[in-house]
């Protein structure tokens, strides 16, 4: 029996096993848990909106939208939110630390991204010193935004959500502090290494393993509170967000450690491992955490439980199965075993299943509530992110097909796709989550509500320009590369206007990030100037 036959049979058996497993998680027939989505609401709270980022007028408008869309309007004053108040209070300091440091890395990462982008059309700019050469600024950008902003913000949002989801205060916060500290040290030293040319040389894994191991240790430590809280959870079942978070917190340290085993990986196996890691850090860490956030914040803002528990179950397990094996689509046509590329292409297309399960579920939940977008800053970011998840995933599935991959492989189109997923989806959801969580963390409202709109407008415009110009430029670049009648340099020069467009988009996004950071800073100052008494904060939670 040859290796392809073994793989085909393994594949079929695995898929069957997967669906049997999903079936076994259901209890009884029909919709297994008709009220599965209600676990994130306190008794009597369904139908009540929550968006701490909105001002009081917007909250009233939001509530009106919710009342109009829900069959059973909420009855004011009945919900007892003491459990949630305790949960929120327990996470304040560690979440502030995580989101605060994440935001600083966001600024650094954005500036390096902008520098790198400009260098692609101004190649003689900033060439005098080695640490400012394109190959380093690009790497500093990727590592600062991925491991700095995205990962730390994701861990911050996770830490903030878990006690709410489990209805028990945070336990083991010392692990969160220590993990956050280690992670930040690892990143700071790691970026210093990269800037000075000390690199392990693989995309997403540049930071030397001696330093990068702090990500695995720090990440695992930040996961400890979940293990400590689980036995004390006061819920009748674990909400879908907990599955995503729990799996992601387990997956990341394993991924990183396996990828960084020194001296083991060799030759083209190292390349397949590289993309096993590179795609799974998205699929097994950033994506699940962002999806967990959408599953929490979207229903919470509009006061309506997620439509289908079963769809969310299907979406989770199919993602866990299919997403893990898509990485080799980065090596289509390369010197690696053909069966592996085929497997990754098949799994990339199968990713349509979890994506549709998620999108249909969110859309059904939002139905009749789209007017809430006008009144909720959180929802605007989160829903936009959720939509970009669908777009990026469907695009990714198409991009894996050989005919399309032949054009887009090795071009800027792939870069645009990466930003569609990691920025349009993950970062936007995290912004929304931060706008929701920080007023609870700091016990003050956002000082200048208009700055949230400015942030949204800037990054939305910048992101749109970025994606449109770079996708078109990348596609044309790919067509030129496939045309033997055109010289190679033509595939370079034709991209210049699009690369300039990308720089403009990146500039707007960077402005937006500075607005966000400035507003965050103002909020911390406001908190320092007038410390809010606990009782007042509780009142705000109760009536918020």
């Amino acid at each position, binding site marked *: 029996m040859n*290796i392809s036959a073994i793989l085909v049979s393994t594949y079929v058996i695995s898929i069957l096993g997967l669906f049997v497993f999903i079936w076994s998680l259901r209890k009884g027939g029909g919709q297994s848990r008709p009220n599965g989505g209600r676990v994130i609401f306190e008794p009597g709270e369904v139908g009540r909106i929550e968006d701490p980022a909105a001002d009081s007028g917007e909250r009233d408008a939001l509530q009106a939208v919710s009342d109009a869309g829900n069959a059973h309007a909420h009855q004011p004053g009945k919900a007892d939110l003491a459990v949630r108040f305790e949960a929120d209070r327990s996470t304040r300091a560690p979440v502030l630390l995580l989101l605060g440091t994440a935001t600083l890395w966001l600024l650094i990462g954005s500036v390096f991204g902008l520098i790198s982008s400009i260098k*692609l059309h101004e*190649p003689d700019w900033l*060439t005098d*010193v*080695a640490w400012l*050469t*394109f*190959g*380093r600024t*690009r*790497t500093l950008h990727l590592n600062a935004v991925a491991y700095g902003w995205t990962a730390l913000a994701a861990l911050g949002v996770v830490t903030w959500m878990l006690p709410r989801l489990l209805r028990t205060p945070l336990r083991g916060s010392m692990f969160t502090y220590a993990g956050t500290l280690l992670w930040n040290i690892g990143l700071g030293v790691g970026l210093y290494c990269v800037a000075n*040319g000390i*690199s392990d*040389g*693989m*995309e997403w894994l540049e930071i030397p393993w001696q330093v990068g191991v702090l990500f695995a240790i720090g990440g695992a430590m930040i996961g400890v509170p979940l293990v400590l809280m*689980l*036995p004390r959870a006061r819920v009748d079942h*674990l909400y879908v967000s907990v599955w995503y978070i729990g*799996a992601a917190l*387990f*997956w990341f340290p394993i*991924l990183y450690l*396996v990828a960084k085993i020194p001296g083991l990986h*060799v*030759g*083209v*196996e*190292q390349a397949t*491992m*590289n*993309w*096993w890691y590179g795609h799974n850090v998205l699929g097994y860490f950033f994506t699940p955490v962002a999806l967990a956030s959408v599953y929490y914040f979207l229903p919470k803002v509009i006061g309506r439980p997620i439509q289908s528990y079963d769809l969310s179950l299907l979406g989770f397990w199919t993602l*866990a*199965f299919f997403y*893990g*094996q898509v*990485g080799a689509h*980065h090596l289509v*046509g*390369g*010197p*690696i*075993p053909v069966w592996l590329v085929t*497997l*990754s292409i098949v799994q990339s297309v199968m990713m349509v299943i979890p994506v549709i399960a998620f999108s249909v579920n969110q859309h059904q939940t939002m139905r009749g509530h789209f007017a809430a977008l006008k009144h909720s800053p959180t929802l605007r970011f989160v829903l936009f992110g959720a939509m970009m998840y669908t777009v990026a995933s469907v695009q990714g599935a198409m991009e894996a097909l*050989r005919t399309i991959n*032949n054009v887009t*492989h*090795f071009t*800027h189109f*792939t870069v645009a796709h990466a930003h569609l997923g990691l920025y349009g989806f993950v970062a936007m959801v995290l912004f929304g989550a931060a706008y929701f969580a920080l007023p609870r963390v700091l016990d003050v409202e956002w000082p200048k509500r208009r700055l949230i709109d400015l942030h949204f407008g800037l990054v939305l415009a910048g992101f749109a320009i970025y994606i449109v110009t770079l996708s078109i430029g990348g596609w044309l670049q790919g067509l030129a*590369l*496939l045309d*033997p009648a055109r010289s190679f*340099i033509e595939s*370079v020069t034709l991209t*210049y206007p699009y*690369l300039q467009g990308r720089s403009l988009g990146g500039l707007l996004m960077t402005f937006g990030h500075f607005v966000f950071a400035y507003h965050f800073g103002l909020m911390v100052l406001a908190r320092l100037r007038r410390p809010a008494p606990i009782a007042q904060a509780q009142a705000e939670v109760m009536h918020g």
Partner: protein
Amino acid sequence: MDSGFKLIAGALTTMALATSALVVLPYLQVRDLEAPPELKPYTEQELRGREQYISLGCVYCHTQQPRGVESGVDALRGWGRPSVAADYVYDSPHLLGTMRTGPDLFNIGARQPSVDWQLGHLYQPRAYVAESNMPAFPFLFEHKLEAEEGEHVVQLPPSAAPDVGVIVAKPEALDLVQYLLALDRTYPAPIE
């Protein structure tokens, strides 16, 4: 907790499947590959040059994996035959690359075997390809009034040459160029 257990067990299973497919099986397949007889291990200087290639991030714009006719026209561009796994047995970390902002370099040593062309092109790519967007690497060179004993003076086109003095290559530049010249896999593909 039952559902907690199922969650972790299920998550670890899917992770194990992914790791088997993308890491373990490829490892078993390439572990015992033998280098083609014509492929020589890198010399120490070439390895130092390879470190420069990594440290300067050349891999972000250059692939080292020509592909077959089903995937494009690499052979028609003179980049060589499709590469195979055995071509990479001496490569760690791998430098396959994912972008072609610049051309494939799998056989650059055969295409541009001139040390002076390579050095000058690193010093100022636009002196050779006017529309190129490759970064210039002036920090790998020194501008001196005159070269000292044993220093390599870079022969530059008039447009890039300094008005006074000479440009000499630092050891990093010479190492890097030796590595680039070693990128020559024009031997026939080994049978796998």
